[in-house]
């Protein structure tokens, strides 16, 4: 219990530290930043090694929070927090679909690679290479394929589905690797034992390999959740889908010079989104805690 309390305390300390550093820099840092090698009369020349600290570049934390409760765009519009939450929920839903697709695909790939060594040799390099392709590069491509499917008429393909598929592209990777490592985790003695029971592939998978894989699976699923959120936000931006938090971030960032605290609304929203996503997976882990027992050595 004390360890748990300590963990919470350290978490709070971490967040507070970030806030203190932010405000401290804002107080001490040069308002116009510090630029070296600037050529006189030439705007934007030189290298900025210290960022600007004035209110337009770095709003106060309390201004960012206060902005959440002021109307979105003047007049009778609802406080900023309302559209932020709506957009975050929309993105969360899309990321969840992307996560499910990614977990399914990743788990199947992991199982196939564990079952056949040849498949591991053939697939694993491609799976690793797949993650080096920049998301921005192929997101529009995937979106246009989605649009074409939708236009063909046989299967409806809404834009959010393209976003979910792109999100799954990031989330399948940790699952594929985690499942492969997890399924190979059982001790030699346990595998021997299953062999003496004349247990085939499936009984061994269900009774031994999957339960033994749980400690490898949980971090993989959590990573996949975080990746799905990042993927969904980036995909929304790059294919221009409305309604999600990614689009909102870009939109408000564009108005930052006149309303500097506003883009921090969706920023906090996407942080909350990531926390909720990772936290939901942690809840899965609570239900599986018996699978995380270590056998005491004799």
């Amino acid at each position, binding site marked *: 219990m004390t360890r748990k309390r300590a963990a919470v305390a350290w978490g709070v300390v971490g967040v507070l530290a970030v806030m203190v550093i932010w405000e401290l820099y804002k107080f001490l840092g040069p308002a116009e930043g510090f630029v070296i090698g600037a050529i006189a009369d030439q705007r934007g020349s030189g290298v900025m090694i210290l960022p600007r600290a004035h209110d337009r570049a770095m709003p106060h934390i309390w201004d960012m929070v206060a902005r959440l409760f002021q109307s979105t765009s003047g007049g009778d519009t609802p406080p900023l927090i309302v559209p932020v939450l709506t957009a975050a929920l929309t993105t969360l839903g899309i990321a969840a679909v992307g996560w499910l697709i990614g977990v399914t695909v990743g788990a199947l790939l992991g199982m196939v690679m564990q079952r056949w060594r040849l498949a591991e040799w053939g697939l694993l390099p491609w799976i690793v290479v797949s993650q080096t392709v920049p998301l921005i590069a192929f997101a529009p491509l995937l979106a246009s394929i989605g649009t074409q499917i939708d236009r063909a008429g046989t299967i409806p393909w809404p834009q959010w589905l393209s976003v979910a598929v792109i999100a799954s592209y990031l989330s399948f990777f940790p699952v594929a690797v985690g499942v492969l490592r997890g399924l190979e985790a059982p001790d030699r*003695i*346990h595998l021997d034992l*299953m062999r*003496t*029971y*004349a247990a085939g592939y499936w009984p061994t998978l269900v009774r031994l390999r999957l339960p033994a894989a749980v400690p490898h699976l949980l971090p993989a699923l959590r990573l996949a959740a975080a990746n799905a959120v990042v993927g969904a936000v980036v995909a929304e931006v790059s294919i221009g889908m409305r309604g999600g938090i990614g689009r909102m971030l870009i939109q408000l960032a564009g108005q930052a010079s006149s309303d500097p605290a506003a883009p921090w609304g969706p920023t906090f929203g996407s942080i909350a989104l990531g926390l909720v996503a990772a936290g939901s997976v942690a809840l899965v882990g609570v239900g599986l805690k018996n699978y995380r*027992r*270590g056998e005491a050595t*004799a």
Partner: protein
Amino acid sequence: MTTEIAVQARNVSKTFDANSGDVIALEDVDLTVEAGEFVSLIGPSGCGKSTLLRVIADLETVTTGELEIFGKPARQARVDQDYGIAFQQAGLLPWRTVAGNMGLPLELHGVKKAARAARVAELAELVGLTDFVDSYPDQLSGGMQQRVAIARALAEQPRLLLMDEPFGALDEMTREYLQSELTRIAAETGAAVVFVTHSIPEAVFLSDRVVVMSPRPGRITDILVTGFGDGRGDALRESPEYFERVTAVREALHGSPVERANER
């Protein structure tokens, strides 16, 4: 009716492929274990005693020679669950309770829940763990874990029990206690036991016959009959006959070149 033969090995050899050339683990091993008999395999590291056990269990296949378990090929005997096995490590599944671990083989072979619960209760009684059926392996001592492993090996009432240094990792007190328990359990179940050990007193105390092996290549050099019958109380450990047999086994062992453990 003639006595049934549990294990019949004729000219069994086993060669492993290694990078540095073939390694002969077993050479021309002849061994017969009768039903209900307790046979220990003893010898220095690398003498092939564990390999012999694994061959009997069909965890390895023989390179040449014939091997029959209850008159069947080893593979068939494994598929038919003619033997139960216990290793040096208990090898319990940490996410299963004691009852879940004991019942694992029954579950895998489709025994219904009620029948399984009844058998698990019997097994827990047999190894004296009735109060611990709902505990998890990490809550048990090493000796208790090993008792669960023995119960699991006995779950399907095998006529043959294969044990690979099951008490090797335990302290002396627990070891002697479990040895007495094992003789009782073997007598109660009537199963034949093939028991791998590197402890001379353990082999003598437990066995009807002690098979002495020597390394490189692994082969049987001597077979000694203890002739203690059923009288295996703690008094036996202090009897002159017992010490006589211990000495005999020791001499049989040292007749072969003594191996250093690091040459394995």
